[in-house]
């Protein structure tokens, strides 16, 4: 593998790891609170959305095979619209990283380090994220390749260790009505929309011809993993008590009969997943900026960006505020992440940019 080339599998494997950290976010609690027993239905539907979204961004990316969105967006949409659209995507990744940093740190404080100041945990995460920037894309994807099987295994181990599964917890299906289904769908789709990082990574793919197939497969894997983890939580706890916990999945891991007190091991494993999620969000934001402004270097921009991220992550005064910020962010960014590639695709078709008609500019 050359320094700046990664395989499609490596690129799309990231989404599986990133989605696996949903149990470390307050998402599940929100799902149960909004839709009760039926939340798994919109979650299952969101897999379809995710696959369709992968198709959309790959159609766009394949029109400009050797360029990132930061390079072709200004050409397709003009400088006035193109740059803001790219900056919007970059901002979303940066903020996603900020919120993940806060949520994951809160999780570790609650789960293992009750008396450690959250800023200390963030500092560690930020240092690790900085190291990831120095390791560059190749280092990140290789680390993810190594950690991914361990991370995925941990969820299956939890599932196997859960003896208290009660299928009656699925009934009655619509105990909270239909109103909550849409927010769950939005939130899950927003989580899966993180795959839009491919717009920035596409020129790095060594085998772009495999991207569509690999992308769909990995998106389905990520979606099913999310569904599996959620169903494990719902069937173990039930939605009534599940919604009272901040991290219901943590409670599930604390109640394993086959692996008593095994959650400590799992939390260590999930630290890797959290590291990948946070580092990757920041890395994509940094990479996007560097693609917009080619004179910038990823490493130094990353190092400069991380203190700002920590500062922003600490802005929420308390846990409920952080959870609310996360929820609001998920609902709003879904539409932005969907609209940006849609606008660019429509404009590229209308203006006959890209594809067979467009010039292919190499980096």
């Amino acid at each position, binding site marked *: 593998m050359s320094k700046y080339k990664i395989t499609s599998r490596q690129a799309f494997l990231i989404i599986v790891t990133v989605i696996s950290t949903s149990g470390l976010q307050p998402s599940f609690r929100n799902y149960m609170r909004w839709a009760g027993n039926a939340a798994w239905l919109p979650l299952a539907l969101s897999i379809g959305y995710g696959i369709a979204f992968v198709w959309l961004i790959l159609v766009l990316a394949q029109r400009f095979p050797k360029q990132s969105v930061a390079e072709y967006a200004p050409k397709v949409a003009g400088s006035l619209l193109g740059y803001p659209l790219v900056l919007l995507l970059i901002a979303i990744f940066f903020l996603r990283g900020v919120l993940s940093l806060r949520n994951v740190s809160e999780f570790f404080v*609650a*789960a*293992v*380090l*009750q*008396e*450690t*100041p959250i800023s*200390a945990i963030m*500092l*560690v995460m930020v*240092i690790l994220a*900085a*190291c990831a920037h*120095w390791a560059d894309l190749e280092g990140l994807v290789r680390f993810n390749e190594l950690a991914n099987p361990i991370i995925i295994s941990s969820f299956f181990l939890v599932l196997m260790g859960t003896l208290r599964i009660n299928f*009656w917890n699925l*009934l*009655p299906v619509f*105990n909270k009505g239909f109103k909550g289904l849409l927010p769950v769908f939005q939130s899950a789709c927003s989580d899966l929309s993180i795959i839009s990082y491919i717009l920035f990574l596409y020129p790095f793919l060594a085998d772009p011809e495999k991207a569509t197939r690999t992308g769909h497969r990995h998106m389905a894997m990520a979606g099913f993993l999310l569904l599996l983890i959620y169903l494990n939580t719902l069937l173990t*706890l*039930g939605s*009534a*008590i599940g919604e*009272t916990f901040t991290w219901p999945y943590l*409670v599930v891991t*604390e*109640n394993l*009969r086959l692996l*008593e*007190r095994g959650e400590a091991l799992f939390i260590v494993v999930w630290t890797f997943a959290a590291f990948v999620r946070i580092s990757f969000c920041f890395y994509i934001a940094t990479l996007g900026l560097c693609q917009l402004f080619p004179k910038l270097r990823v490493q130094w921009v990353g190092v400069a960006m991380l203190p700002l991220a920590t500062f922003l992550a600490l802005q929420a005064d308390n846990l409920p505020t952080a959870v609310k910020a996360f929820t609001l962010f998920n609902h709003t960014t879904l539409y932005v992440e969907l609209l940006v590639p849609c606008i660019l695709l429509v404009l590229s078709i209308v203006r006959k940019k890209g594809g067979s008609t467009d010039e292919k500019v190499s980096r």
Partner: protein
Amino acid sequence: MKRYLVSLITLLLVLTLLTGCWSRREIENLGFATIVAIDKVEGSAEEIELSVQFAITAALSGGEQGGDGGGGSEAPVWTVSTRGKSLACAIQEMRSFVGKFPFWAHTRVIIIGEELARSGIGPAMDYFIRNRHFRHSTYVMVSEGPARDLLEVSPKLSLLPAELLAELNRMTRETSDSVSRTLLELMQSLVEEQTSELLLPLLAAHKTPVTDEASPSPEKEETAKAETESLQFIGLSVFQDDKMIATLSPTESQGVLWLRGESNRGNVVVEVPGRGLIVQRQVYGRRILRITETDGKPQAKIIIFQDGDLVEHNIDQLELSPAAIEELDSLLSAHIKAVAEDALRKIQTELKTDVIGIGERIYRLYPRLYNSLSWQEYFPTMPIEVEVKASFRRTGELLQSPLSTKYSQR
């Protein structure tokens, strides 16, 4: 040069991670709580009494017995009590004189005093479920009388009273005359509105009869304490919402557990009219709950499937032929049905509390029907049919008892 500089900065940053951890607790500074008991303070509506049994780790590691390190039959534990308006306040008070940081992760059992249970346990449970150190798999039970008093027992075959209680909880699966409930299960029952009402095991002191009648009266209290040799479950405590409303005897508990489908083991003693007793060791138990709707009202049918082994009988001239077994099966079924119906009658007419989970089943399968009812009012009058299909499967190593035949003529 730049690379060296970056490496140096990274190294320095990483070094900051090696300086220790805010949340560290040195093991020698920890007090390992094994049992937590909470009671209502007499004459105070607000205060609760917290009693904690700490393991004396030095005595444990040395294999010594005795809380004072002086040997004897006392368990290597130290029991302390404090009072406070909340558990957090009581724990802080406790820390001021215990000299160790209470470590809750090894707490096996939470005992709730009867008086507190009758006044409502919901508020007291918040601390346990919120605090990360308490395991959700911790067993919870209600004591007959004050919970604090039960911490004074010194078990003979277990090193720690907590071990005895954990073992008693596991034993409920073998006896099926009580149940074990964990903190998580308790919370699920309390939080879910439509679930069956809460049942918790009822714990009491196991006392041996007084033999020394000549004891002078001032020492009578001490003698009474010495009588308490162990702890035992004496049935179940029944809750409505978060308040304990009644207790069930072991036989009633057995009936309720059959109705709930939670009875899998234990002896069933069947009287054969005019002939003697037969004892079955149950090895399998299952319940099917069928809900039907008639005139907009639900009806329930509970079918109990049960089988086990004949382990003992004292009936003369009983040859265990297929016809005889069939007859015994019907006697067994009738016995189980009678016990289950007695328990059902009590919970329907006396307690008016659905501890079987029929309401939950109706809610899950027919939520509209459930919501159209006032369940608390409907349950006592609900038609519930009980059917039992019980059988003897094996008879041990005997088909005919030689001893009962020989000696029954005496």
